[in-house]
């Protein structure tokens, strides 16, 4: 049993944290995150150079990581600065391409940006309810349907799209240039798109792709949960600092027990969150990955809401302002719940397991 990071991962974590703290301070982050194209091509390139993308893929796929803990280290660092770069799409695409045995050089180097388009308006989470259809075969495959809230889609070069053909869920590659891409920014920063497919040219990456898609979703969940832990950690520290500094009734508000106990409850839930992410990360490449990822996403959803809402409440009015950094952390933590399955969706999956 060992709860320390390996030396390699510790180095990756340190260098990412250093780079992000230095180059992605919250003012920069907010500028990038809320203005089109909702990411910074320059910083994207630098992150890739640091190995943030190579760490997401195993060695035989051209990377130097690919385990749940590699994913976790990268995304926790991104979460600490609520980084808007479209790394999640790269991770999920890499998982699919690894399963397909496809070449990932352009993805891992950051040269080509990928987005993974799974969710639809009426099926935001459930793979079994996907309606986008693939037809034709060989060189004449086309897709029709609408993919909704595709994270990173506003700047993607390539989409990997989940679509049904003859009752089978497959993965299809679509060039952004061939599709109608309606990009937009998100309430919590970064961007996404609606991907409108109408007889759109595609190539088949994985014909029978349900398992591969589930694996990509699982990896995405470990990533989002790790991102949430990083963000919750920072927001909690901000809150505790604020409790020490803010004076009312002639003393620091952190001297009031009512607030102390709530700050402790946040801590408890963050530690529980960290634990369940460790568990999910350790199981990511194993047989029970889906179950433990659902557990993690459910717990993170609950803990995230507690931490975000309590942070806002205990800060008082200042946390209601755009200017205060904590507000943006709270938004990101809350909105993570709406990605890849929310608290209730995953609770029902745990119950059914």
């Amino acid at each position, binding site marked *: *049993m*060992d*709860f*320390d*990071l*390996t030396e390699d*991962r510790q180095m990756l974590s340190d260098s990412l944290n250093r780079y992000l703290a230095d180059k992605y301070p919250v003012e920069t982050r907010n500028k990038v995150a809320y203005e089109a194209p909702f990411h910074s091509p320059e910083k994207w390139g630098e992150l890739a150079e640091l190995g943030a993308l190579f760490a997401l893929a195993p060695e035989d796929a051209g990377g130097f990581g690919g385990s749940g*803990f590699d994913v976790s280290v990268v995304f926790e660092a991104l979460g600490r600065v609520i980084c808007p770069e479209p790394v999640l799409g790269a991770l999920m695409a890499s998982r699919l391409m690894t399963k397909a045995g496809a070449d990932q050089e352009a993805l891992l180097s950051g040269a080509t940006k990928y987005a993974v388009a799974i969710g639809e308006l009426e099926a935001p989470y459930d793979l079994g309810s996907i309606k986008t259809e693939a037809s034709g075969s060989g060189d004449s495959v086309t897709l029709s349907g609408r993919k909704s809230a595709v994270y990173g889609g506003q700047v993607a070069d390539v989409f990997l799209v989940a679509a049904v053909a003859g009752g089978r869920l497959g993965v299809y590659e679509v060039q952004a240039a061939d599709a109608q891409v309606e990009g937009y920014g998100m309430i919590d920063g970064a961007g996404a798109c609606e991907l409108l497919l109408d007889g759109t040219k595609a190539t088949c990456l994985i014909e029978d792709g349900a398992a591969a898609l589930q694996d990509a979703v699982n990896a995405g969940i470990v990533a989002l949960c790790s991102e949430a832990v990083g963000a919750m950690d920072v927001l909690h520290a901000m809150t*505790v600092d604020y*409790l*020490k500094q803010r004076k009312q009734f002639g003393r620091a508000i*952190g*001297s009031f*027990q009512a*607030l*102390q*106990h709530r*700050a*402790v*409850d946040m*801590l*408890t839930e963050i*530690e*529980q*969150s*960290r*634990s*369940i992410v*460790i*568990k999910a*990360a*350790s199981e990511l490449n194993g047989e029970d990955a889906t179950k*433990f990822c659902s*557990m993690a996403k*459910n*717990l993170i959803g609950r803990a995230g809401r507690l931490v975000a809402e309590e942070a806002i409440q205990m800060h008082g009015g200042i946390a209601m302002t755009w200017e205060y950094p904590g507000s943006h952390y709270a938004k990101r933590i809350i909105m993570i719940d709406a990605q890849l399955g929310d608290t209730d969706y995953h*609770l*029902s999956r*745990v*119950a*059914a397991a």
Partner: protein
Amino acid sequence: MDLTFTPEEQEFREEVRSFFRENLPQDIADAVKAGGELTKEHMERYHAILAKKGWLAVTWPEEYGGPGWTPVQRHIFDEESCRFYAPRIVPFGLSMLGPVLQKFGTQEQKDYYLPRILSGEDWWCQGYSEPGAGSDLASLKTRAVRDGDEWVINGQKTWTTLGQHADKIFCLCRTDPDVQQQKGISFILVDLDTPGIEMRPIKLIEGGHEVNEVFFTDVRVPYENLVGEENQGWTIAKYLLTHERTGIAGVGFSMLALEEVKALARKVMRNGKPLLEDPLFAARVAQVEVDLEAMKITNLRMLFKAVKQGAPGPETSILKIKGTVIGQELRDLARRALGPSAAPFPGHITDGNLALAPANNANNAARYFNNRKTSIFGGSNEIQRNILSKAVLEL
């Protein structure tokens, strides 16, 4: 990051399992499973079985007759003893007084008392809480005044767990009322046969007799029954609180309780279907299952940290808070799963009317009520929050 146990630890787990398989008497396991009160005979017989194997004083170093286990081995033993429905080892002599004597006792005290704890000759109980000193333990008033080579003790202790079986009590007494509260307390050993002591049972919410109140009227004990130095009692009390914190999360008990709830909810029918297929009930079970899964890792993380640092830190209060809440939630679900069948008073259930509930679950409501104690005793969950706020958040 590596969540697996070493081959040696796995081997140890197997050894513990086969020990329980071969040595734990069925009637004792059944009594634990039923969730009612264990008799003194049950507990003494179980202790003797462990003592014979050298596994009774799990936290003691080998020089005093302990097995010399690592914290991880203790964790494995705890987990397996829950899995086999072994009783909890009565902690007062073994995991409370024993370590205190080893650290603060004189050679004579160690030589005399430690073997008697191991052999079961002495059954100790704890004299800490008083009617006016619960969470604010340092305000305790039971007075010990030195008179020649004796202490004269007057006052009242309460919540004395299993005191009805005990023959000795270790007490925190006020020995100097004129200094700061924490600096005027001493740790004194008292034989319960001494004249002037009266023990009265306290009947608990579910009807059980687990705790007692103890009255001291001019009780005279030898001066050398003092442990450590005069007025050093608070240091000893704090040492005792931080020393023994494995198992504080009750993960093993909760894992078992979760399985019991699921098994029960598969049997109990509602709306023509097993209760576990009711989406609302299933969701409640799933949520506590998620919390417990996280708690298992939190528990191991703190254990790992304690091994690395040499001692558990204040963050272990998280285990107490969250662990007890999870256990209580499971007891609530077990009670709720039975519906009105949980209502009959346990003592009123006979073979004739047992049709209402599976035999093992007759105590579900009683256990639910009894289990509310866990967030109150051992430093209430609010006190744990105070500790975390001060020591971890530095508020």
